[in-house]
């Protein structure tokens, strides 16, 4: 006997501002099989989860439908609540009425409410056909792979090694340290970056469990959490490493602003990293300089703030003044983002020491004109509301950090998503930081977003901590979404065998005839075979054709019979 | 040979399709249609394709059983046959032979039905033999005998394809006689007009030229209305009427009162539709009428059949190809069971038991003195069991505990019997109440002939052995005949039985196995050199002139009331057959239509707050059943429909056993009922 409970979430105003939650609850109550329908202000809060658990027990529910946000982030939470209340977690169904409804139909409350009802009806229809599932288990290879030996990758590797986990580090260059190697000191505390890199490198070289592959690239990645197979191309040689987890620490690179502000045209126009390089030399001689912040960022096509540049400009202005106290340094900025006490102190010191701050806007961008041994910068100062001309020996462009060229490749190898700028997308910024949606693959440092060296280290350590969980547990659970054959229905036509991207299906003898069989450990639960099967002999757990068919029926029914 | 293809005749409806049973390792494993068969032409319906499925079912009865207290216990054939014979003799001695009722079976072959009626008449000495034709086409036999002189389909199945107009009423042809239905579709595709009159929108009505939904039980009104329109539009065939019929003037007088307006008030059929339909039917060169239970199963069933005969004769649509009045018989051999004399008033070949000359012919042939008294109809037998006049029943392959109206009444009647023996292939609801049970062979396990609804005599061939100790009914009948009467039952094969039947039934006179093996012969076929008859009444009617019957509309026996506001009608669906004994044991058929349901109009459902698949309770004056609602626009508001296949919610717990006075057929098609949420 079906006893479905439906819980509709307000998500504060996030849902309730567009969707009439009361109405949806009333509607849900009348759906077939529903014995309880209620609402929560925040279903995911302790209180919300507690009330769901209590309702399960009070109403003897055997199926739970939560209409709230996205299953991609919150499903585990509610599944756990179901388990705690004594229901198999696969008897839970998530309906997304926030990302897929209230947020995208914010101005049409009536339509949003109608759609929420449809989605709830579909969810309830599927829930009524859900079946409890047992999860399989699979062993985890106690080894990790870190891609990238920049500061993030080094921090991650060092942390893994500290935990005694054998770690392979793949670095495309011939040395470790990545982008940080080109920066002498790290602001705002003026930390010597060489020392930092060396100390981390030492922790690698001192460990017998570390395997550093320089001049190497990832060629292919197969497998799944606990059981990856990474092929490394090292020169002409291919090395295959079996690993339980992979950390992506592929870092970032500095944007080369071809054609902007006279870059490539005038030798006096350089990027900030070039400035770092020149400052590292003893013969640094320029005295009239300007730094343009946000050169190539926060503008159409690259809208993001690169986060590290403001501090770098401040730090470098001060370093210039340290070398040449008479130097005239102007920072052209759009906003100075120097968050935190240490960075704010940097800004104060720069102001005190005469660094001139000029605020410019995108409408009247600074113009660069030719001049012997330098350039003339014509800038419109928004604060003074007038145009100023600066005679410069050097013009430094603080350009944003962008993903490395090979991040496309890396993303494809690992089947992990990237955002529109090419940075990797983690599963959820708040709920699942440093994790990809793909189990067993993690991300840290500037591969996911431009961050400071300090944050790189934090994230490297965080990713290592996450990666060590399956490795130290020694096994992972296989989500029960694998395919299953009904051998009595199967005609052994081999469609599924051919369609499976993982070669996880074979035809075997069954009683006196033949039938397909799914190797559960190899099955990743994509359902490609399901669509290839002509007589529904193969079904994906949790996505059976009856369940999806019932969702379609529910959608049709609510459309024809109305949502009252 | 490891795999064989045995040509045989389908055991379901009366269309008489031939197909090949695929036999492998001694089991029936599949069905292949026969491409050269005139009737099926290489097609079958879903039941035909699954006709092998029940044969191997584990529920088959495999050994005789005798009741000991509450239990049926395994017995030998010797013990079981002896037990039946001694009980029959005892009851006959104590109460006379008319205290015994014998039920033959439309599922048995011609030969078996012949033998069963012979057991009743010659071995027991009673004309109390009947079979389920009583429940389906008794009114056809009675009505068409009176109008035309022959109670069978006037034309043949293939002729449907060449008709110009086909009027279908009270027949859900595409579901109940699929391959006749598809012949009608072929005619439609060639341009023929199809008129369907039915309280439900049937699959056929949805592709018909005109579809009219009459109120159940109002059929005389619309038929008379059509005749009235035809006469007033001068579309009647005066020449035909004058030359070939009698009684036209009385008919004309009667139908005058059936104006389109009045017909609308009686039936609900819009005037325009009725006029169009009448003109369409009357102006076609070749117009056929096909009908089934929707006409016959009424307390005025005989009159309804005669009204249709009137309609055909008025327009001269009798006696030519692709015309006529065509009752669609619903069982593989219900036609043959009637032909073979499994009727209380007729000997084999429709010869009256009350006619002295005929009787003496049979007495001579069978070497016995025969009862002069007309026997009892099946539907009366249960009444008589309640009153104690009937003490014993011998039932071959029938399941009255499902098939008869008002099952509660049947159950009470059976409990009054002193003795009941049942011969069947499965443990039916009736078998469970029997004193002696004999396991029979099914169609795939014996030789014989079935006569299709269009009078075609078709061979049934043995493909596999019966399960366990089961035996063909013809052998059982012979064994019982020998035990009860001694001689007259020494047949070595069905072939010999048919030879004897041909000798006493002139319509079968020229039919023998040699011919059946190679050709399709339709009776009447009086002699070996006669080719058989496709179209009846070509030159003259069997009774000389066709008789018009002036019929007035009468309301059904039971009308709706506040307490029972809905009209309940019953029928078949495509996937199940009759009491479900065979089809519900065929996995694929069962899956298509697994459980009992009631069709209710969308409007009625909304009013009653019933949603699709909801559980509902239906109550009539006789009983209550609970089943699932099927909400549909295909049925008239105010009418509900229940298929009668499902024992767990048997429609016949509700139906009315009001009988047609002539044919004693019950009014299955109309009773008053109430529907509520369960």
């Amino acid at each position, binding site marked *: 006997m079906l006893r479905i409970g439906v819980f509709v979430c307000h998500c504060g105003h996030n849902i309730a501002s567009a969707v009439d939650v009361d109405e949806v609850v009333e509607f849900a109550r009348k759906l077939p099989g529903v014995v309880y329908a209620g609402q929560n202000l925040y279903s995911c809060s302790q209180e919300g989860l507690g009330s769901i658990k209590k309702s399960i027990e009070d109403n003897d529910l055997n199926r739970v439908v939560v209409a709230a946000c996205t299953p991609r982030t919150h499903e585990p939470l509610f599944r756990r609540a179901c388990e705690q209340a004594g229901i198999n977690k696969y008897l839970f169904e998530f309906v997304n009425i926030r990302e897929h409804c209230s947020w995208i139909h914010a101005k049409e409350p009536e339509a949003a409410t109608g759609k929420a009802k449809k989605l709830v009806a579909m969810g309830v229809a599927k829930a009524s056909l859900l079946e409890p599932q047992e999860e399989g288990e699979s062993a985890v290879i106690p080894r990790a792979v870190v891609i990238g030996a920049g500061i993030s990758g080094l921090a991650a590797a060092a942390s893994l090694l500290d935990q005694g986990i054998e770690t392979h580090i793949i670095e495309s260059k011939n040395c470790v340290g990545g982008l940080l190697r080109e920066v002498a000191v790290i602001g705002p505390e003026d930390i010597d970056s060489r020392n930092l890199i060396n100390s981390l490198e030492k922790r690698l070289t001192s460990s017998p469990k570390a395997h550093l592959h320089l001049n190497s690239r990832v060629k292919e990645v197969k497998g799944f959490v606990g059981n990856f197979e990474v092929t490394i191309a090292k020169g002409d040689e291919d090395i295959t490493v079996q690993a339980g987890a992979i950390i992506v620490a592929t870092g970032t690179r500095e944007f080369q602003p071809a054609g902007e502000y006279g870059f490539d045209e005038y030798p006096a126009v350089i990027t900030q990293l070039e400035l770092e390089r020149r400052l590292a030399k003893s013969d640094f001689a320029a005295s009239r300089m300007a730094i343009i912040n946000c050169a190539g960022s926060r503008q159409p096509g690259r809208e993001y703030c690169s986060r590290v540049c403001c501090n770098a400009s401040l730090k470098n202005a001060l370093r210039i003044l340290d070398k040449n106290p008479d130097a005239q340094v102007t920072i052209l900025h759009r906003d100075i983002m120097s968050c935190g006490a240490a960075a704010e102190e940097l800004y104060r010191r720069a102001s005190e020491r005469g660094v001139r701050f000029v605020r410019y806007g995108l409408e009247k961008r600074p113009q660069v004109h030719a001049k012997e041994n330098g350039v003339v910068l014509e800038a419109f100062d928004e604060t003074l509301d007038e145009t100023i001309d600066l005679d410069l020996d050097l013009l430094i462009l603080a350009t944003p950090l962008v993903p490395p060229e090979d991040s496309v490749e890396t993303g494809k190898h690992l089947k992990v998503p990237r955002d529109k700028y090419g940075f990797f997308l983690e599963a959820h910024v708040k709920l699942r930081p440093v994790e990809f949606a793909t189990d067993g693959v993690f991300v840290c440092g500037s591969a996911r977003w431009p961050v400071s060296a300090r944050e790189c280290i934090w994230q490297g350590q965080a990713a290592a901590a996450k990666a060590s969980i399956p490795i130290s547990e020694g096994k992972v659970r296989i989500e029960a979404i694998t395919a299953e054959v009904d051998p*009595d*229905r199967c*005609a*052994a*036509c081999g*469609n599924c065998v*051919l369609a499976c*991207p993982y070669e996880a299906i074979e*035809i075997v003898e069954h009683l006196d005839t033949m039938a397909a069989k799914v190797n559960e450990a190899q099955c990743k639960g994509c359902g490609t075979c399901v669509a*290839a099967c*002509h*007589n*529904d*002999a193969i079904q994906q757990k949790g996505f059976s*054709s009856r369940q999806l*068919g019932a969702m379609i*029926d529910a959608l049709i029914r609510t459309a024809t019979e109305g949502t009252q | *040979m*490891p*795999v*064989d*293809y045995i040509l045989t005749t389908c055991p379901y409806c009366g269309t008489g399709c031939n197909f*090949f049973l*695929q036999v*492998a390792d001694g089991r029936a*494993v599949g069905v*292949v249609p*026969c*491409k*050269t*068969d005139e009737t099926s032409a*290489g*097609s*079958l*319906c*879903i039941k035909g*394709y699954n006709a092998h499925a029940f044969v191997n079912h584990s529920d088959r009865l495999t050994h005789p059983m005798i009741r000991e207290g509450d239990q049926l216990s395994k017995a030998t054939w010797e013990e079981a046959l002896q037990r039946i014979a001694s009980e029959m003799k005892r009851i006959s001695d104590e109460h006379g032979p008319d205290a015994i009722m014998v039920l033959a079976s439309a599922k048995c072959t011609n030969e078996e039905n012949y033998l069963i009626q012979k057991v009743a008449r010659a071995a027991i000495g009673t004309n109390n033999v009947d079979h389920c034709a009583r429940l389906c086409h008794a009114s056809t036999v009675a009505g068409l005998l009176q109008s035309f002189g022959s109670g069978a389909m006037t034309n043949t199945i293939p002729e449907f394809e060449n008709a110009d107009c086909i009027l279908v009423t009270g027949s859900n042809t*595409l*579901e109940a006689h*699929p391959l006749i*239905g*598809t012949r009608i*579709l*072929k005619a439609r*595709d060639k341009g023929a007009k199809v008129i369907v009159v039915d309280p439900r929108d049937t*699959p056929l009505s*949805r*592709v018909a030229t005109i579809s009219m939904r009459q109120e159940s039980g109002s059929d005389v009104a619309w038929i008379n209305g059509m005749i009235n329109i035809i006469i007033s539009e001068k579309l009647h065939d005066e020449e035909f009427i004058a030359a070939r019929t009698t009684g036209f003037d009385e008919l004309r007088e009667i139908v005058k009162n059936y104006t389109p307006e009045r017909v609308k008030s009686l039936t609900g059929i819009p005037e325009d539709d009725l006029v169009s339909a009448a003109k369409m039917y009357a102006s076609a060169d070749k117009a056929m009428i096909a009908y089934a239970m929707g006409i016959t199963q009424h307390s005025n069933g005989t009159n309804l059949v005669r009204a249709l005969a009137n309609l055909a004769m008025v327009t001269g649509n009798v006696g030519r190809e692709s015309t006529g009045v065509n009752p669609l018989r619903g069982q593989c051999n219900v036609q043959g069971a009637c032909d073979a004399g499994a009727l209380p008033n007729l000997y084999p070949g429709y010869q009256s038991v009350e006619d002295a000359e005929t009787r003496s012919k049979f007495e001579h042939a069978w070497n016995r003195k025969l009862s002069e008294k007309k026997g009892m109809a099946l539907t009366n037998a249960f009444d008589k069991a309640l009153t104690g006049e009937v003490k014993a029943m011998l039932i071959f392959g029938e399941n009255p505990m499902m098939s008869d109206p008002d099952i509660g009444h049947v159950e009470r009647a059976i409990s009054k019997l002193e003795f009941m023996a049942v011969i069947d292939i499965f443990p039916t609801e009736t078998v469970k109440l029997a004193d002696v049970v004999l396991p029979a062979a099914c169609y795939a396990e014996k030789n014989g002939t079935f006569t299709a609804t269009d009078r075609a005599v078709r*061979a049934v061939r043995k493909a596999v052995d019966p399960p366990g100790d089961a035996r063909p009914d013809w052998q059982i009948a012979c064994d019982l005949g020998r035990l009860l009467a001694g001689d007259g039952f020494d047949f070595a094969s069905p072939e010999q039985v048919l030879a004897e039947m041909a000798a006493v039934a002139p319509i079968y006179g020229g039919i023998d196995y040699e011919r059946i*093996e*190679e*050709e399709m012969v339709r009776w009447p076929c009086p002699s070996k050199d006669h080719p058989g008859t496709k179209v009846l009444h070509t030159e003259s009617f069997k009774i000389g002139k066709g008789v018009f019957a002036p019929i007035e509309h009468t309301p059904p026996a039971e009308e709706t009331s506040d307490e029972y506001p809905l009209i309940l009608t019953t029928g078949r*669906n*495509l996937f199940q057959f009759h009491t479900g004994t065979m089809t519900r044991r065929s996995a*694929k058929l069962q*899956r*298509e*239509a697994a459980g009992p*349901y009631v069709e209710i109009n969308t409007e009625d459902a909304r009013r009653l707050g019933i949603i699709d698949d909801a559980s509902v309770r239906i109550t009539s004056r006789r009983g209550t059943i609970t089943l699932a609602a*099927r909400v549909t626009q295909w049925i008239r508001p105010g009418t509900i429909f229940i298929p009668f296949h499902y024992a767990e919610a048997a429609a016949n717990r509700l139906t009315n056993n009001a009988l047609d006075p002539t044919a004693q057929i019950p009014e299955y098609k109309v009773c008053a009922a109430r529907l509520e949420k369960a």
Partner: protein
Amino acid sequence: MRLAFEERGADYLLAIKEAHGQAAPVLLRKGDDAGTMRFDVPYQMTMILTNISRFIKEGRIAVVARRCDERAIAELVKRDLLNHDNLVVIGLACSEEQIRECRCTDPCPSSADIGHCAAPAKEDQAASSIQSMPLPDRLDYWIDQFRKCNKCFGCTLNCPVCFCDDCLLEEKTFTPEKGIPPGLAFHLIRAVHLADKCVECGECERSCPSDIPLLALRKMVNQDMKRMFNYTSGDPERRSPLLTTLEGDPMEDDGDAC
């Protein structure tokens, strides 16, 4: 047709012979009396062969096969549903009348052991006239045709390349109609199931008691398969493009919305 046994070394011969005045399928062994053989009645021999092969585990079966049977056999062999080594194919050339009935464009068996190859038909008039209808008319046309369906499953049961015992169309999941006719999805699902295997034998149309022009529908879909994937069913070498990656079968872009 003793050439099956003597020349080609078969143990059984599947053919059609005259029995009880009808053309009947028959399985013969060497030395059996064949009676009168019939080659004029187009039984679906592959379908019968497949059923028989379930029960005959040993020995080679010779089958009188038309060109479409050859192609159907190829589809089944590809899927390991028939073993080619156990078959002896005796080619039967179709008569002109049969070619006309099937609008067959590929009527000649690889070896015409019986009969003579006649010229193929040019195009399917039925299919082209349906194709030329505007969409709403076409839908009306098909609805009228599909309304005649009484769900006998003859089109699947007699189909040489419909190999499932339990058919999806028997379930209510995708074809929820209770009773008959089944809805549009019934016929669409069959169309997609057959897209990569229909050999245009025409048996679905022939065995349809309601004369639904199913062969025309099959031909139209097959044309699409040809256009989109350059695929023709019955090719023993090529696997279904619907199951393989794009590398195996790059798609022809025919400028459609998708």
